[in-house]
């Protein structure tokens, strides 16, 4: 075990996987110097052949991942901010998500697309989106959203070894230091984790919202409400079983998600609960999400828009 924050944990996963498999290559804008810290030191260690600084050209970056993967490599395409998934979206939606299927399964596409998501930094609307709802609607790709240093490491190693395009999306800040396993630590894609057990209500949280959900559950405990907190970790495939079993136990469900609400992971989870746990539900399923808005710059406005602990607590109290 080592104590580390999220960006160093990501860095260690990249080093271990690139050491293990020569076919793993990584590229991105300023991947060498590393704007956000995930790729610090990789170019010095693995050389400029395997770790490349690209021009600013997201459409080619996302597309060439598909070509390189089809030709036998395991590319990691670093897109910096989640909003630049949009600039590279054509190849993601039209090639990465479909080429295997369209060609009758001739290829596998072991790609990792990575980016940071979410607001809270006064970076304004074009650097603060949480764009996974659009990705979840493509089919043909997996989406993982680690919430901590430990899950960041375990899921990245799994994503790199997966034979499908995997979107690997984390918060932009490194979060709290925590114990991260040093050995070959893998978290399976598609498996949620129950962070706190409880019988009164289930709170499913995603990525940067997980910490807030845990905080909310601590506050709720003080007033006698025992919430079960689920860290979803993977959005696609989604761990329906863990969600449904919990809802069957608690009879109530709140989903906390930093993406905009319409056609979101949160609304999808609500649909799953309506479909598969309807008879267990004692109250409406509630979503604590972002309204259909762009993320504003001024911190007091941003605080209005992004879910906080109070929103979660209040939503739960409305139900119980």
């Amino acid at each position, binding site marked *: 075990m080592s104590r580390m924050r999220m960006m160093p944990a990501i860095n260690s996963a990249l080093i271990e996987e690139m050491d293990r498999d020569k076919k793993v290559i990584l590229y991105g*804008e*300023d991947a*060498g*110097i*590393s*704007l*956000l*810290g995930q790729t*610090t*030191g990789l170019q010095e260690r693995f050389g400029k052949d395997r770790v490349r*600084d*690209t*021009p*600013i*050209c*997201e*459409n*080619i970056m996302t597309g060439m991942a598909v070509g390189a993967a089809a030709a036998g490599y395991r590319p990691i395409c670093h897109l910096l901010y989640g*909003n*630049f998934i949009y*600039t590279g979206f054509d190849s993601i939606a039209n090639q990465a998500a479909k080429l295997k299927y369209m060609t009758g399964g001739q290829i596998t596409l072991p790609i990792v697309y990575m980016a940071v998501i979410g607001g809270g*930094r*006064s*970076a*304004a*609307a*074009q*650097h603060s989106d949480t764009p996974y709802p659009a990705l979840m609607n493509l089919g043909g790709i997996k989406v993982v959203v680690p919430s901590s240093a430990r899950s960041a490491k375990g899921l990245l190693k799994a994503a790199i070894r997966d034979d499908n395009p995997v979107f690997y999306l984390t918060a932009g800040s490194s979060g709290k230091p925590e114990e991260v396993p040093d050995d070959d630590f893998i978290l399976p894609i598609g498996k949620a984790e129950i962070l706190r057990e409880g019988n009164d209500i289930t709170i499913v949280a995603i990525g940067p919202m997980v910490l807030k959900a845990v905080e909310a559950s601590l506050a709720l405990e003080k007033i006698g409400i025992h919430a079960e907190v689920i860290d979803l970790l993977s959005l696609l495939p989604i761990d329906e079983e863990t969600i449904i079993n919990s809802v069957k136990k608690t009879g109530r469900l709140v989903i906390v998600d930093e993406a905009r609400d319409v056609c979101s992971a949160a609304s999808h989870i609500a649909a799953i609960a309506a479909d598969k746990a309807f008879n267990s539900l004692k109250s409406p399923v509630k979503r604590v999400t972002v*309204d*259909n*808005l*762009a993320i*504003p*710059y*001024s*911190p*007091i*406005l*941003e605080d*209005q*828009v992004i879910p906080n602990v109070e929103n979660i607590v209040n939503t739960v109290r409305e139900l119980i």
Partner: protein
Amino acid sequence: MNVNKHNTLDNLSDEKLVELYKKMLLIRKCEEHLSSATKEGAFPGAVHLYIGQEAIAVSMCDHLTEDDWISSTHRGHGHFIAKGGDVNTMMAEIYGKATGICNGKGGSMHVADFKKGIMGANGVVGGGMGLAIGAALAASMDKKNKVSVVFFGDGAANQGVLMEAMNISSLWKLPLIFVCENNQYSEFTHTSEVTSGKIVDRAKPFGIPTLEVDGNNFIEMWQASAQAVLRARNNQGPTFIEAHTYRQRGHVEFEYSFLSRTYRDQDEVNKWLANDKDPLLRFEQYLFDNSIIDNQKTEALNNEIDSVVKESVSFAVNSPLPDLSSAFNNMIA
């Protein structure tokens, strides 16, 4: 196309030249304030400063009116001010206040004033390209001889959208001016490491006339701008200007709070800060050499601009924060 050397600044009055100098000085001093205020944590968010590139925006915008359009980049304060944007509301925007030009919703990377033809700074590299093309299309349909200018960086020149923009603007003879500000860096990477060939040459196969200028030479940049704007106003189609310059500051202020190593030599930076390279100092020298300003006048101008900046900062600091409900309006009409 060559820069027309005969078309000097001779036809500009002394007062006009001083006005232009003041505009460059205003941009410089606003940015210097923002640099030091960043370190004090005086406002939220990050700033990308225009210091060292002032001659480009000011000389180009001198040929434009409020009816013309510009689109800009993440490094957009200079373009905003040069095109006539109000400094007080720009500063208030960066401070995240209700009185900001975007009511505190956009911040540094989105300062815009559509009434003045400023389609705004932009957080997406290459994002201004489509906006400028669209405004040029509207201008060509209006037939009022309006023009549209897209300012973009050397880094943005590697986005595929530039090719699409060059093709369609040339094909449709749009009144568009491409201004590539080659400041030698794309974030923390030298342009040479991510760019093949010469950027200005990319326009040639599209039949777009090109001008390559020393963007730190105000006069040269002013002349090139005059030619390009004239062509656009006369319905002769787009012109592509590559202006060579240097990004004196980091990509973003305070970047060594997160970067793990340096990426350029201080010697290189110092070279570009010198009298013979810095665009503001060079223009100042030109005005000196032509006896348009003297030490006394320069001091007075500096004091004047200092007080403009000071006023904008106190306007920003003393302005109220946005009303909380404003987070939820403006999303759709």
